[in-house]
C-alpha cells in the first residue's frame, strides 16, 4: 500500500468512529470565533474528512474548516470514542499536501 493510501486508511478508520455526540465541541476555541457553525469545530471537521473520502465535499470549504483548526488537542481529550482528532487533522493536512514526507 502506498504512503498516501495508508495515510487515508489510517485517518478514515479513526474518523468513522465518530458517533456525533458533540462532546468535543464545548472546548473548541475556533467554534465560537467562527460563527458557531459546526464546520469550524472538531465534530464538523472529523465528519467532513469522512465525507471527503467517502462521497466528496467542496474542497474550498473543507480546507477552510481544516486549516482553521489550531491543533490544540483540547477536543481529543473529550472524545468518548477515543478518536485522536487533532492527530487526524494533522495527518489530513499532510494528505492534502500530497503526502510530502510520507512513504
Amino acid at each position, binding site marked *: 500500500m502506498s504512503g498516501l493510501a495508508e495515510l487515508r486508511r489510517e485517518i478514515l478508520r479513526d474518523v468513522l468512529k465518530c458517533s456525533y*455526540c*458533540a*462532546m468535543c465541541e*464545548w472546548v473548541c476555541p475556533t467554534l465560537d470565533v467562527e460563527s458557531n*457553525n*459546526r464546520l469550524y469545530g472538531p465534530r464538523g471537521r472529523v*465528519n467532513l474528512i469522512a465525507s471527503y473520502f467517502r462521497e466528496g*465535499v467542496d474542497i474550498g470549504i473543507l480546507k477552510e474548516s481544516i486549516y482553521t483548526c489550531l491543533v490544540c488537542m483540547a477536543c481529543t481529550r473529550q472524545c*468518548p470514542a*477515543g478518536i485522536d482528532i487533532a492527530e487526524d487533522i494533522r495527518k489530513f493536512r499532510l494528505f492534502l499536501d500530497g503526502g510530502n514526507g510520507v512513504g
Partner: protein
Amino acid sequence: MEDHVKNLSKLIGHDKVYVDPATIKLYSKNAVYYEGNALAIVFPESTEDVSKIVRYAYENDLKIYPQGSASEIVGSSTPKDDGIVMSFVRMRKIKDVSYIDSYVVCEPGVRLVELNNYLKGSGYMFPIDPASIKSATVGGAINSGSGGMMGAKYGTMKDWVLGLEVVLPNEEGSVLRLGGKTTKNREGYDLIRLIVGSEGTLALVTEAILRITLAPEEVVTVAGFFNDLEDLMRCVINIKESKLDILIMEFVDDVTTKITIDTIKPRVSGSGHLLITSVSTVKEAAQRVLDKLIDIYNRNNSSNIVSARSMEEAEALGIFDIRRNLYPATIKIASSSLEVDEEKPYIFVEDISVPPSRLVEAVKRLRNISEKYGFPMTLGGHVGDGNLHPVVWIREGDREKMDQFNNFVMDIMKMAVELDGVISSEHGIGMVKKDGLIMSYRRRNSLYALKLMREIKRIFDPKSILNPDKMLPSDVY
C-alpha cells in the same frame, strides 16, 4: 428555494442563513445514523429573529426543524428537505441568576456543562446531568425531557423548569411567557410541562427560567461487585429501606463489566455485576453514612468493595470509571468487530424504565431478547429509578441486522410495558419509537390519549410546520 433563502437573509441578516452543502450536511445528522436534508440552516440570535422566521415559514408553508446540539438519538432533531433547520447555538446567554430565589434565566443554546460551570463556586448546581452533559443544550434538554445519573434524587427536566418564553408556530409568530420565577405556580393548565419533552413539536423555546438547587455538602460513594443479580437487587432494596438520601445508583451487568474492564482498564476492578451508590450527606455524618452503606453491601455478598468519603476521593479512586466508560468501551468493541476498514459502526442506546422492584426480571428478559436476535449487548443503567440502557451495535452495511433491529427494539419495549414500565425514559420518541408509543397506549386501552396529543399539536401548530412527523404517530386512533 433561492427565494426563501434570499427572503430569510433579508429578514434576519445574511450572516445568519447558510446554504452551502457542507453546513447543511453537518446540521442534518444526529448521534445515531439518521441523516436528512434541509433547504437552509438558520441561526437566530434573538427571540425577535425566531418570531420573524416563524412568520415567514407560516406564510410560505416552510417546515422548521429546531435543533440544539443534535446529540439526541431518536431522530427528533433531524430535518427533511421541505424545510429549514433552526439552530439555537448562537442564543447562548445566561441572563440572570438569583441564589435567594434559586433560579437561573438562560437562552436555549447554553450547554448544561456551561450552566454548571457558571454556577460553580456558588454552592448551587443545576442537577440534570445526562451522559451528554457536555454537549446537551438547555433547549434540547427541555424538549427531550432529559434525565441523568442523579435522576434518582432530582428527577428529570420536567421538575426543573419554572418558566419558558416560547414562540408559537402561528401566523404572528406569537411570543408567550409561561410560568415565572416561583416554585409554586397554579395559573391554569400547566403548559410548561406540556412543552417539556415535546421534542420541538409544539413551540420554539427562546428563554428558560430554570430552578437551581444547593449542591450536596458531602457525597459518599461505594462501589461493589455481585455474582448474583438477586444479591445486587436486595442490596438496592436494603439501601432504599435504610432511608439514605440516594443521589446516584448505577448498575452495570457482569458481561459489560468484564468487557469494560478488558477494554478500558479502569482503576476499579472486579468480577460480576457492578453497583455504584452515592449518598448525599453532611460532613459530620459522612463516615457514619459511609459505614452504613458498606455494611449493606457486605451483608449482600458484595466483593471488591471500594469506598470514598467525598466526591473528590471517588474521582481520585476512579469509582465511576466502569460506568462512565460503558459507552466508549462499546464503541471500541463495535469498531473492532467491523469486517471492512471503511465501515462505520452504528451504536444504539435503548432507554426503557421499569419499576425498580422489577429490575431483576427486566435484566433476565433483556438477555433472552439479546440472545434470541443474536445481538451482542452491553447493559447499564440508572438502577435507582429503574431506567435501563441496553446498548447494541450494527455495522452500517448489515441490512439484515438493521431490519431485525426494529423487531428487537419492539420486543424490548413490550417487555418494559409488561413489567409496568415505559418505552422511553429520557431519550424520547422521535422517529424510532412511534410504533412503541401505539403499542404502549393500546395495551392500556388508552389509544385516545394519542388522539388528544394530536389535537394539542394541531392547536399549537395549525399548519404543522414545526418538526412535523416527529413523536406522534399519524393515524391509529
